[in-house]
């Protein structure tokens, strides 16, 4: 679990305690054995890390990545030419337009539902919501199939609102995303109170373990076991010297300004720091796109936050040579209606929308698929949510053709058994 850890360090002691109290080592060895099977059919995708920017509430495709200039459906949103000939974005995406040579835009995205909760779940897991099982999010799949990268840091971090996130689904609870509610505050409660010595902390842990033994034996089950696994994770994290990755205070003011001081901008900056430290998957959530009214007043400011933060993220990753090993995914729930409603807004529109890929494993300067002249339905290059997730999995080198079995014995595939979009893959 923690390789080459000198036993005399506090960290080593913590690790030994985690092992002995929580059985962390045994479980991990089992998992490792289970997951390092043959990766049949998987291309050698170069993305070692994935940063997903998830637009909650459904981002309008017409006003961002798929404008229809000159059409009445376009409303008040202007356009800006990109570096890719013949391709324009919504006017607020000025910075991304200048970086379109890095982007693969999928304009023929189509989904099955126009309900937020179900569409969010589908985009994150590639499977529709059903009552009998909870599917893992892509980040948990990546860790399950391919292991972690960072030493003691979690493999999967979720920045923003964690409610409704499918998390690790039916996979090992230790693969669940670690939620960071506020990127400015980072990961809280990681410092032992000043009065508490390491020895006393260990005494407390040992006492808790002894007293709890009967209960854990009597009520063993997935929920109680999940906490057992995470107690091990938490102890491991507390002893880690890498927690500084969560501290945005270590970034100079000029960097903060490039990302923007919005929570989303900070989230993207945190994502960059975490990827740099070896975290495998970071998801940053950005809400507020559900613009049923006043879209033309509200969208420019929101799109500008996205534009600034995502452009800074791409620049920073490229500057550090990390864009060659990091896949950046911009995803949302569904599109919004071409018809502008009576409240100057747009309603839910699952028939067509846009998503964007950039970085490792992906071709830049590409637009795949197109919506029709009104932006109502895909005209060419239709891509389902499963296809999209499979494309992400392919770019990240995950074994998307392999069947994995849930504890109930049912088979599932990473990416939901879709077909990868070869046109956007490098």
């Amino acid at each position, binding site marked *: 679990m923690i390789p080459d850890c000198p036993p005399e360090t506090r960290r080593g002691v913590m690790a030994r305690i985690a092992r002995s109290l929580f059985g962390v080592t045994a479980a991990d060895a089992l998992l490792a054995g289970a997951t390092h099977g043959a990766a049949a059919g998987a291309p050698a995708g170069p993305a070692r890390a994935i940063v997903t920017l998830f637009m909650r509430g459904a981002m309008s495709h017409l006003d961002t990545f798929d404008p229809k200039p000159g059409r009445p459906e376009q409303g008040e949103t202007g356009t800006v030419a990109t570096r890719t000939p013949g391709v324009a974005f919504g006017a607020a995406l000025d910075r991304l337009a200048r970086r379109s040579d890095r982007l693969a835009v999928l304009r023929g995205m189509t989904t099955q539902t126009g309900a937020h909760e179900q569409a969010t779940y589908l985009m994150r897991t590639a499977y529709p919501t059903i009552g009998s099982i909870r599917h893992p999010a892509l980040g948990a799949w990546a860790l399950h199939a391919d292991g972690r990268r960072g030493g003691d840091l979690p493999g999967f971090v979720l920045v923003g609102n964690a409610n409704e996130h499918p998390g690790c689904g039916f996979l090992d*609870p230790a693969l*669940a995303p*670690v939620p960071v*509610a506020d990127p400015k505050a980072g*990961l809280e409660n990681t410092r032992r109170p000043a009065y508490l010595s390491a020895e006393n902390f260990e005494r407390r842990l040992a006492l*808790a373990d002894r007293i709890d033994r009967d209960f854990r034996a009597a*009520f063993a089950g997935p*929920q109680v076991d999940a906490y057992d696994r995470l107690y091990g*994770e938490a102890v491991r994290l507390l002893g880690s010297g890498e927690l500084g990755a969560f501290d945005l205070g270590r970034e100079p003011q000029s960097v903060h300004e490039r990302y923007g001081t919005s929570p989303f901008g900070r989230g993207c900056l945190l994502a960059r720091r975490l990827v740099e430290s070896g975290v495998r998957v970071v998801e940053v959530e950005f809400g507020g796109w559900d613009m049923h009214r006043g879209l033309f007043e509200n969208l420019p400011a929101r799109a500008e936050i996205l534009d600034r933060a995502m452009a800074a993220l791409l620049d920073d990753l490229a500057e550090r040579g990390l864009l060659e090993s990091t896949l950046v995914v911009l995803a949302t729930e569904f599109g919004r209606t071409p018809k502008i409603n009576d409240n100057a807004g747009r309603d839910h529109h699952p028939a067509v929308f846009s998503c964007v890929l950039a970085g490792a494993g992906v071709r830049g300067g590409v637009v795949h698929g197109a919506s029709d002249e009104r932006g109502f339905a895909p005209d060419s290059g239709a891509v389902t949510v499963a296809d999209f997730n499979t494309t992400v999995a392919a770019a990240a080198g995950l074994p998307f053709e392999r069947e994995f079995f849930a504890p109930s014995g049912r088979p599932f595939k990473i990416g939901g058994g879709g077909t990868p979009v070869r046109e956007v893959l490098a």
Partner: protein
Amino acid sequence: MNLDLSGRKPDLDAAREAYDAYTDSQAPRALRKRSLDRFGYQGLVLARASELPAPLPLGHFLRQFGQSDRETIDGGRTVATVPQILAMFNGPITHAMLERGSAIAEQIADKPPGEAVDVIFLTILSRRPDAEDRSLALEAIETAEDAATGHGNVIWALLNTREFLFVQ
């Protein structure tokens, strides 16, 4: 408020009493919240979840443990996360229990170890310690530098059991 009180001597005490009675009985949420600030501890209001405004901000103890964001029906969750455990380890809500001034710390401050252990178990786990629990807890109290540290260790340990987290 611009009440014209000229020519009348306002009975401020009576007014304050009436105001308090009013806020206690049917105060709107904002006023109730202000009165809850009396129970503040390190920036947190220690009161029943149902007395607090909802949804609480992201990152609040209750949100960490899955309180609904109230954006969709049934939006709460019961999923285990690492930050929950970090909050139980090091967070202010755990430490409020260990310090003088908390109901439990006051109850056990001057009690002999045997009684203190009973109070701690009944308060946190709603049961008496069995023989093994008792000897472990007594040992923890007797080997600590002082009684308060020993009590703190036992309280902390019980708060960090799965028995405490789960409703049986």
